[in-house]
């Protein structure tokens, strides 16, 4: 399964970067969304994927039955998902405000603060 996922994640990274290189701020934000999803999937995938064995312990037992999926990347991804959501929510509102202030969707019109 992992090779297939690797290809899919590669596509995700590629599309994300392509979108980030556009001039439109909306596309930029969509690119950021794709990118953070891709990174989360990457963590999940590289640690190895296991079918049908969630890291849960049946009631009354002290250890899971048999091999279970690695819980650590799951916890890490969960944290990363929430962080990514926070940042993206911020970014989404930021482009909205930027559009209100600059009155353009075009990143090339936002270069006053540089040289």
């Amino acid at each position, binding site marked *: 399964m992992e090779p297939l996922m690797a290809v899919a994640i590669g596509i995700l990274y590629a599309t994300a970067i392509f979108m980030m290189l556009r001039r439109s701020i909306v596309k930029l934000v969509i690119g950021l969304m794709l990118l953070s999803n891709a990174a989360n999937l990457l963590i*999940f995938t590289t640690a190895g994927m296991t*079918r049908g064995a969630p890291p849960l*312990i049946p009631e009354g037992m002290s250890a899971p039955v048999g091999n279970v999926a*690695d819980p650590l990347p*799951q916890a890490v991804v969960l944290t990363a998902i929430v962080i990514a959501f926070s940042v993206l929510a911020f970014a989404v509102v930021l482009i909205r*405000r930027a559009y209100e202030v600059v009155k353009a969707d075009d990143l090339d019109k936002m270069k006053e603060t540089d040289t």
Partner: protein
Amino acid sequence: MIQLTVIAGFILAATVPLLHRWFGERTSLVLALYPALLAVWLLEQMPEVLAQGNLLFEWQWVPSLGISLTFMLDGLALLFGLLISVIGVFVLIYAGGYLRNHTDLPRFHIALMAFMVSMFGLVLADDLLTLFIFWELTSITSYLLIGFNHDDLEARKSARQGLFVTVAGGLALMAGLVLLGVASGHWSLSEIRADDTDLREHALYTPLLICLLIGAFTKSAQFPFHFWLPNAMAAPTPVSAYLHSATMVKAGIYLLARLHPELGGTALWVTVLSVVGGLTMFTGAFLAIRFTNVKKLLAYSTVMALGALTMLLGIGTPAAMVAFVAFLMAHSLYKGSLFMVAGALDHSTGTKDVTAMGGLRSLMPVTSVIAFFAALSLAGVPPLLGFIGKELMFEAALGANAFQLLLVLLAFASAILTIAVAAIIALRPFYGPRLITPRVPHEAPLSMLLGPGILASLSLLLGVFPGVASDLTAATVTSLTGQPSDAYLSLWHGFNLPLLMSIISLALGFLAFKRWDRLRPKLALLAPLMRYGPEAGYEALIDNIARFSVWQTKVLQNGYMRNYILVMLLTLIGLLINSILVRHSPLISFSLDVRFYEVMVVGTLAMGALFATLTRSRLGAVVSVGVMGLSIALTFIFFSAPDLGITQLLVETLTVMLLVLVLFRLPRFTSFSTTLERVRDGLIAGAMGVLICLLILTAWSIDQFAPISGYMIENSAPLAYGRNIVNVILVDYRALDTLGEMFVLALAAIGVIAMLKFDHKSSQGPRTERKEPYDG
């Protein structure tokens, strides 16, 4: 402790505003106590220095790095220290009169004191790095002094020029000192001196010498770096008197003299120093008589003197060493005096142009007498100290082992021109018909006569009784040669060739003075040549650096964010390709075990991402992103991550909602970029995708280590009392992550609320910053 005394000088400089509040006009006198005390201390040490050769005052500064603030006092340091402190006393007193009622006098005193202390530290420093630090401090403080009249464009420009030239030299010096440290294995002058190994044989000798010489030459205004010194005349006259007689420019000379016993005497040293010194000497003297500005005249004659000193160090014979000491003392005394006289003239007539002055003798009698004696010393007329210096210089040039003829000719020509300069300064303003000057001339106040008067008297005194300075001379020559010496000065050397040269040069120099008014227009014809001189090169260099910096910034910081992203990604991609494909190879153990529904879900995921990229409708993009998110959630659920699946689902829903709330406030998608750009971006994006794919496979294929999560699975129920291991990790094993994460979410919410609701009317603070249009 002498170190503390020197450092206290900086503190004293910092408290000058306070002193001004307490002492008002008398602050100069109060400050003058400091160099006076130092001078007394130095004189006290003299017997000891004569007896022992050199004294060390050790004080560990950064022991762990082996940097110490050790001071070394030998004859050379003693001589320079005395010049700095004695002339410093008079300059401070003089400045009090010259800048009386000037509103910025405190600022002047701060910089002058700081400069004095730096100079003092420089000549006393034993540690190479300490020496460098004080060296740079003199550059910076002299910058502040030269640019004192910052309302004047010329002053600022000159200050900057002086700073750039000396600091550039300072960099070379640092390189040289580091090389010296590496080559000798010691980081202090006294240890290098004590070590018997001959540095001249070392492989690094040539580079280190060149670096050190560049440092010394820039500082002491040797050709072709001489141009900053005359420009530095933009400084107030007391500064000129101090910087250009006793101190700043002599720092370079001091360094050369300091290094002479260890590095001198080789063919390289002799050639470079005597030729550069000789050229500088002649250039200074020749350029001097073009000018009618009294300060410029003096400045170029200083260049001449600096050249002479360098030349003498280059010649390196014992006779040259004695000449060096005599010339150095003579020059410091008469030049300090003459600059102060020039300041007095400027002060009372309102002009610096000697041709605009005349007949001042009756109005400024004391000044004219002082000027006369100081100029006699400059001209080298017996029985003044300048005469001894000049005589010995001729003698040294005649005794040179290399370039003898050249050096003698240069010395002779320079002497003639210098005599003309001396005559111009001493005679022109005071004799002849009275001319109308911008201010009504009057005698200078006592504070402005004291300094030049005493310095001129010293010239006379030491000329008549050279034996007074014998001890000092002997000690200095000892440190210059590295061998004990009992050199002494005397006025009368008998009737010999140098005396003959002196007499001829006096006659010719006086002739040149008489013809000066007719000579100047002819010299002015040479002016166009100056356009190709070293100064023009300096200007071009500075302009080009400025232009380059603007160009570079425009290219790099161009404001187009996609370019920034491109550069960053290309860096990453390049490094990754080099690492994983060129230097190493990826590791792929291929085993494809998939179910049909999984392929469907992952396919949907990829399609969603691709469609979001390709679609031209906003709704289409949002829906695609949503579909992709759902597929990810499903993937998580299929592969044993129920918590993740649910979270992803909920987050995706919220994200889509946010997008809907925001996106439809924004304009429709438009395509801004060209096809070429799209292809380029596509290629880069594709490269990144392929690399990531390879990296995932490699990381996954490496099966060398057991993950740490085994411990967590085992202990979740027994120790953490939780059966959902993921949740246990979140709230127990790695609760700190979760804590941080919840603060991130909270922060984002605060940011969003602030961004949306920030009310500009209520943002007026207690004292608001004024707005200005953005015109960077």
